[in-house]
C-alpha cells in the first residue's frame, strides 16, 4: 500500500510539473504581451516613457529568460506564494479565494442536484428493465445528453427571464444586493442560481442517470445476486443494499473526475450568465496574458484533478473489497 501510494504520488508530482512547465512556456510562446496589452487597454499605449515600460517588465521579471522566470515561479510556489496579478497587483491567492465561493456554489449545486435526481432515476430504470419508465427515460437521457448547453441556456434565458420575467437574466446577485437583509440575500442568491444551475445540471443528470442504470444492470446479472435471490432476499433489499453498493464503485470513479470541474468552473456558463466565478476569471486572465493568475489557476485545477484521481483509486478497495490497492483493474 505504501509503495503503491509512493509511486502514485511520484507520478502525480511528475505530471504536475509537466503541466506547469507546459502552461508556463506555452502561454509565453503565444503571441501577445501582458505589458503592451495592459498599456494599450488602459494607459496611453506606447506614449509612456520607455524607462517606465522597462521598469514594469523588470518588476514582472519579464526581462529575464523564461527558464529563469520559471525557476523564480517554482521557488515562490515552494513558499506557497502564487505571486501577484499583473493587472491589479493583488496576490493571486486572494483573487482565487475571492471567486472560489461563487464557483463552488454554482457547480456544487448543479452536481448535487444532478446526483439527487439521477440516482433514483437510474436505479428505478435498472430495477424494471423494459418497463415504460425505463424505455422512456433511456430516450430522454440520450436526448438531454445531446442538447447543446449553450443553446439550452439561450432558450431558458429568452423564455424564462426575458419573456416571462420569472428569473433574473444575469449575474450572481441583484443590483441592490448590499441593501438586502440576510434572509433576502439568501433568497436573492437562490433566485439567481436557478437558470445557471439548470443549465449545468441537466447534462450531468442525464449522464449520471445513464451511468447508474448501466452499472446497476451489470451488477444485477451477477451470480452472487442470483444466489442472494435464491436465498430469498427481497427484491427491494436486493437492489438497494446488494446491487447498489456494487454499482457505486464505478460511480466513485466518475464522481472523482467531476470534482476538478467544481473548482475550475465553466467558462461558457459563467460568461453567458455573467457569473462572477473562477472560470471567467481564468479565461480573462488568459486573454490579458496575466501569467501569474493563469499559473495560479493551473496549479489549482491540476492539483484538484490529480488529487481526485489519486483518491478515487485509493477509495476503490473501500467500496469494493475484492480489489486490492495496487492491483490492475480493467
Amino acid at each position, binding site marked *: 500500500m505504501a509503495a503503491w501510494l509512493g509511486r502514485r504520488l511520484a507520478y502525480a508530482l511528475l505530471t504536475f510539473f509537466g503541466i506547469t512547465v507546459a502552461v508556463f512556456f506555452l502561454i509565453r510562446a*503565444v*503571441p*501577445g*504581451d*501582458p505589458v*503592451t*496589452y*495592459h*498599456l*494599450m*487597454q*488602459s*494607459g*496611453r*499605449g*506606447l*506614449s*509612456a*516613457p*520607455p*524607462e*517606465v*515600460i*522597462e*521598469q*514594469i517588465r523588470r*518588476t514582472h521579471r519579464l526581462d529575464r529568460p523564461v527558464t529563469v522566470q520559471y525557476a523564480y515561479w517554482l521557488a515562490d510556489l515552494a513558499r506557497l506564494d502564487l505571486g501577484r496579478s499583473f*493587472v*491589479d*497587483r*493583488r496576490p493571486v491567492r486572494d483573487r482565487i479565494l*475571492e*471567486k472560489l465561493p461563487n464557483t463552488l456554489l454554482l457547480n456544487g449545486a448543479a452536481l448535487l442536484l444532478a446526483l439527487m435526481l439521477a440516482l433514483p432515476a437510474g436505479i428505478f430504470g435498472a430495477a424494471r428493465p423494459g418497463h415504460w419508465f425505463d424505455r422512456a427515460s433511456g430516450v430522454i437521457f440520450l436526448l438531454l445528453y445531446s442538447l447543446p448547453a449553450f443553446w439550452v441556456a439561450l432558450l431558458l434565458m429568452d423564455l424564462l427571464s*426575458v*419573456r*416571462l*420575467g420569472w428569473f*433574473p*437574466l*444575469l*449575474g450572481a446577485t*441583484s*443590483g*441592490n*444586493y*448590499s*441593501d438586502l437583509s440576510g434572509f433576502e440575500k439568501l433568497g436573492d442568491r437562490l433566485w439567481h442560481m436557478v437558470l445557471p444551475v439548470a443549465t449545468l445540471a441537466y447534462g450531468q443528470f442525464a449522464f449520471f442517470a445513464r451511468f447508474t442504470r448501466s452499472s446497476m444492470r451489470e451488477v444485477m446479472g451477477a451470480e452472487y445476486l442470483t444466489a442472494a435471490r435464491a436465498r430469498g432476499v427481497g427484491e427491494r433489499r436486493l437492489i438497494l443494499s446488494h446491487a447498489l453498493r456494487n454499482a457505486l464503485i464505478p460511480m466513485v470513479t466518475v464522481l472523482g473526475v467531476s470534482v476538478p470541474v467544481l473548482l475550475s468552473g465553466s467558462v461558457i456558463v459563467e*460568461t*453567458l450568465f*455573467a457569473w*462572477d466565478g473562477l472560470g*471567467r476569471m481564468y*479565461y*480573462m486572465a488568459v*486573454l*490579458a*496574458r496575466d501569467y501569474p493568475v493563469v499559473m495560479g489557476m493551473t496549479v489549482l485545477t491540476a492539483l484538484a484533478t490529480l488529487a481526485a484521481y489519486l483518491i478515487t483509486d485509493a477509495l476503490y478497495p473501500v467500496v469494493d473489497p475484492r480489489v486490492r490497492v495496487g492491483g490492475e483493474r480493467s
Partner: protein
Amino acid sequence: MNRPARQGSRLPYALLTSLALILILLQVSGCRREQSVPAPTETTASSVPQDGGTLVRRLEADINTLNMALIGTGPEREVMSLLHDPLIEVNERLELIPGIAERWEISEDKRSYIFYLNPLATFSDGTPVRASDVVYTIRTIADPATESAQLSSYFVGLDPLRTRAIDEFTVEVGFDRARASQLAAFNIGILPEHFYSKGDFGEDFNDTVLGSGPYVLTKRDPGQQIILERRKDYWRTTPHIQRVIFRIIPDDAVAWNAAKRGDIDETKMTSDQWQLERNRPEVTSTIDIRRFYSLDYNFIAWNNRRPLLADPRVRTALSMCLDRAAIINNVYFGTARIITGPFTPDQNAYDPDIPPIEFRPEDAARILASLGWRDTDRDGVLDKDGKPLAIEVLLSAGNKTSNLQAQIFQDALAKIGVRLDLVRVDGATMISRALEGDYDATFLAWGLDLDPDPYSYFHSSQFPPNGMNIVYYSNPEADRLMEQAREELDPAARIALYHQLHGVLAADQPYTWTVQPSIKWAVNKRIQGLRESNGLGLFLWYPGQYEWWIPETMRKHDAPAPEGSPQ
C-alpha cells in the same frame, strides 16, 4: 415584457472590446439632449438644491488600485476624481480653470509653469495641500520606479531640477522643451507626501487613499461596490450628495435592467438598448436619456509598409467601398456620424470643410483598374503580376461591432474583386501583431486626449516601439505640420496647422476613418441639477456631478449605514 437588447459585452468581451480604446485623461465631446423632459412634475418640492441622499453609480469594472499615480482605467479615473481634487480643473466648456491652484503663470519660453496653490485646500486628514506635495506628486509620477504607465506619459521631458517648491504654496514645474499641450497635463490629483512617502509606494497604497477631494472612501467590497461619503470639512463649495455608491456591474444588459429597476441611478447604454427601449413608457417615466459624442474614433488601419497598401490611391479606393451611411442608419439607427480625419468634429482642430469620402465602389474599381489590377484568371478576384488583390484583416474576437462592420466592408469589396480575409484573434494577439507590424489591416479605435496633438499616431519618428504610428505612415509634409503645431503656442495658428494636417491625412488615407457612434447615457429622473457639459458629457468636469442633488422625497439606498468611519 421587457426585452433588453444584449450587446456582447460580457466581461471577457469588455476586455476585448475596449481593446486599444485608450482611455483618456480628459474627454471632449459635443453633447445633445435626447429628451429634454425636465424634472418629474408631481414631486419635487422646490428647485432649491437639497443636501443629502445617496447616488448609486455604475462602474463597468472594478478598480485595480486606489493609488492615483498608478491608475489606468476609466473606472479608476471616475472614482479618483471624487477623492482627489486636481491642480487644474476643466469646466464644461473644456477650459482649464483653477482647482487646487488658484492661478498659474507660464514663463516666457513656455518651459516653466508656476502654480499658486489655494491655501484653503486641505487633505481629508486636515493638513493643507502644500507646494511640496505637488512636487512630490509630479516627481513620483515621472519616476520610472513608480511604474505609472498612464500619467507618466504626460510628463515626458520633465526637468526635475526646475521642479521645486518656491514657498509653502508656490510651486514651479519645469520642462526641457515647450509644448502646446502641456498645461492640460496638470489636471491631476495631488498626493499628500506625508502619507504616501511612508511604506512601499507600489504595494501599500492600492487599498487605501488620502486625498483633497470632497469625498472619502468608507467601504470597498472587491468586485461588488465602492462607497464614498462626503467630507464635512471640504475646502470648496460642498457637493449636495451625501453618499456615492459605485456598483460594479460589468455587463451592459445587467446594468440596464438595474437602471430600469432603479437599483442604479446612471449607466451608459448600448445602441441596441437605446433603439429598442428608449420610447417604452416604463423607461420614459423614470429615466432621462442623454446622448453625446465622446473623444474617440474608429478606423481601419492600413499597414503602409505592405507594398499593396503603400499607395494612397489604393487606400482611397478601399475607403470608397465602406458604406458609412448604411452603417450609420442600420447599425447605429442614425446615432453616429462620419469622421474624415484624425480629430473629432468637437475639436477645433477638425476641419469641417473636408468632404467625406463617398461610397462609390464603381469609382474604386476604376482606380484599381487604372493601377493595373485586372481579373485575368477570372476567379472573381483582381490580380496583378500573378498576385491576387487579397488583404488580411485582423479583428479582435470579442469586438462584435468591428466584426459586423468588417463583414459589411468585405461584402462590398468582394463585389469589385477585392478579397478581404477576416482573421479573428484574441485582443492580446491582435495588439502585439499590430505593434509588430505583422498585419495588413486591422480595425481599431483610439481614445483621444483633450489636446488634439496626433504626433504619436502619424509622425514618422513614432513607429513602434517609439510610438503608436502602427501603420508606418510617413509623409514629410505631415511630419512638418505636426512638429510645428506641437510647438505653436498661438491657438489660432495651431488650429490652422491642424486643419492643413487634416487635409493631408484625409488625402493620404493612412487609416480609413469609419464612423463615430454617439454615447447614450441613462440617468434616473430623481436626480436633479443634471447639467451636460457642452463637450465632456456628465462626468470628469467641474462642477459637474457636484451640482447634482436628490429631493428629500425621492431618497433611497440611504440605509444601512456603512461600516467603518470616514478616514
